[in-house]
């Protein structure tokens, strides 16, 4: 059914109705949080949030605010559903992932409400694809309760500074250790793998560091297998903020500029690895 054949009053039948001229604005962000196949979608008047969780230790959120969409209408306060993210991504990228200049896939997304499938209408070059993806009962999600008042240490970096470090992480190490301190070494990433320990230090005066607010020396370890997927978000982003709270919970916030220069955010929250609680 071509896009033009949809009823004009469709917006009233759907609790969520959204249009996007370039589906990549959505698919690239969703890929940055795709480390599990199940995702929970939250739609409010502010926009869309897609959450993926694993092992009750790590949570990733992709935020696509309403302004990114050409049309975004929500008929209830919050519309929530769980969906298979791998299937959603295959549908959003049905015409391929290579971004030829000048071509883009137009997207219209419609959801009738609880129990109904998510409908996607995608069009590129006159060819229309219609997708109907079954939705599931939303699950309870972790609330990391990370608000600015609880932040102990915060560093904002240019993403290019971290990209190489994350791409070359020694995956034979079970953990990645992050040290943040008002004193030397200021900001250190460490791994402890089969070949030995590796430390990467960033000086707080480095050009790569845009903001450095460390009040306390903290050293925390996180399971490297949980953090590795965040590399996808890092690859897309221009800036990243690294924050920890008193319990050692980690918040990584990535600022991502899309093809049209609009800003979106992806964040990763991670629990510290419980085996070690070391203060250096």
């Amino acid at each position, binding site marked *: 059914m071509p896009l033009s054949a949809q009823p004009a009053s469709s917006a009233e039948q759907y609790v969520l109705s959204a249009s996007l001229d370039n589906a990549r604005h959505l698919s690239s962000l969703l890929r940055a949080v795709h480390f599990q196949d199940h995702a929970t979608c939250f739609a409010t008047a502010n926009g869309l949030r897609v959450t993926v969780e694993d092992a009750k230790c790590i949570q990733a959120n992709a935020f696509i605010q309403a302004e990114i969409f050409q049309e975004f209408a929500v008929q209830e306060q919050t519309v929530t559903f769980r969906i*298979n993210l791998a299937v959603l991504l*295959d549908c959003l990228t*049905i*015409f*391929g992932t290579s971004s030829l200049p000048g071509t883009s896939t137009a997207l219209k997304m419609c959801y009738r409400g609880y129990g109904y499938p998510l409908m996607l209408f995608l069009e590129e070059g006159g*060819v229309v694809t219609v997708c*109907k993806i079954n939705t599931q009962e939303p699950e309870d999600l972790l609330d990391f309760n990370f608000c600015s008042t609880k932040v102990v240490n915060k560093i904002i970096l240019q993403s290019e500074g971290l990209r190489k470090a994350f791409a070359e992480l020694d995956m034979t190490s079970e953990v990645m250790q992050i040290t943040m301190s008002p004193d030397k070494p200021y900001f250190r990433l460490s791994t402890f793998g089969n070949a030995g320990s590796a430390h990467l230090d960033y000086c707080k005066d480095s050009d790569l560091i845009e903001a450095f607010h460390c009040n306390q020396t903290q050293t925390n370890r996180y399971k490297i297998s949980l953090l590795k997927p965040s590399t996808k978000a890092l690859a897309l982003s221009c800036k990243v903020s690294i924050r920890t709270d008193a319990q050692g919970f980690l918040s990584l916030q990535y600022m991502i500029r899309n093809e049209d220069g609009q800003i979106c955010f992806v964040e990763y929250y991670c629990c510290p690895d419980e085996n070690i609680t070391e203060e250096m």
Partner: protein
Amino acid sequence: MRFRAKIVDLACLNHFSRVINTIAKLARICTLRLTVSKLYFILSDKVANGGVGMWCELNQGNFFDEFQMEGVAAEHNEIYLELVPENLSRALKTAQNAKAVKMKLTNKHCPCLRVAVELPSLSSSSRIVTHDIPVGVIPRRLWNDFKEPSVPDFDVSIYLPVLKTMKSIVERMKNLSNSIMIEANLNGEMNLKVETDLVCVTTHFKDLGNPSWALEDGCQSSQDRDPETMAEARIDIRKLQQLLAGQQVNPTKALCNIVSKRIVHFILLHEDVSLQYFIPALT
């Protein structure tokens, strides 16, 4: 039985390599039929192949600078060989900058297709890399198994959409389901559909055009058919993806004939090569 051939022209060599690469993607083992004027790569639609059939025809004159063939007998001046096309494809990979490639049928310890690639060399003597590709000689009594398949009595014949677009879509759909429904009508409309418990995805193509086929008695069988009615067949999506993925060059003409619920017959025509591929419907 003798066979000797030589390619000197680099463009012809690359073109020939691309054809072999395509065949290698479609069949693990196939039959190579040599006649005085043509080469054929044949896969007959046995159950062992999943019922898939392939018929690829090349004019030898468009590829080879020298071509000498003597068949099994004067009245049957042809040679049928069984070979693994991937072996030929790999041998030709070494020939990307070759000065010449010679092919010869030999039988030192066992029948082989000997591919000798003459590579450019700084010294006065040339460097030659030789590949001996084992082949099976197919006896004349079995030649009937490899006859050209006739065009089926189809319900709808339609030109395919841009293959690159179709390939992207089928690749994605392959992640969602093992089978795909192809349907088309005489109004130039084609739909590709996958349906599972999780998801249902349909792609709609329009204005594709329907080729006109003149039958032996001069009239078209499709004249009575309602142009809106779809002919449909559900096929193994991996077979379709193999066909589309193997296409390295855009064909001059690409079309398919659908016999509802029975078979989809793909025809891809290039200047020098014609490829027919039959995918049976899933029961």
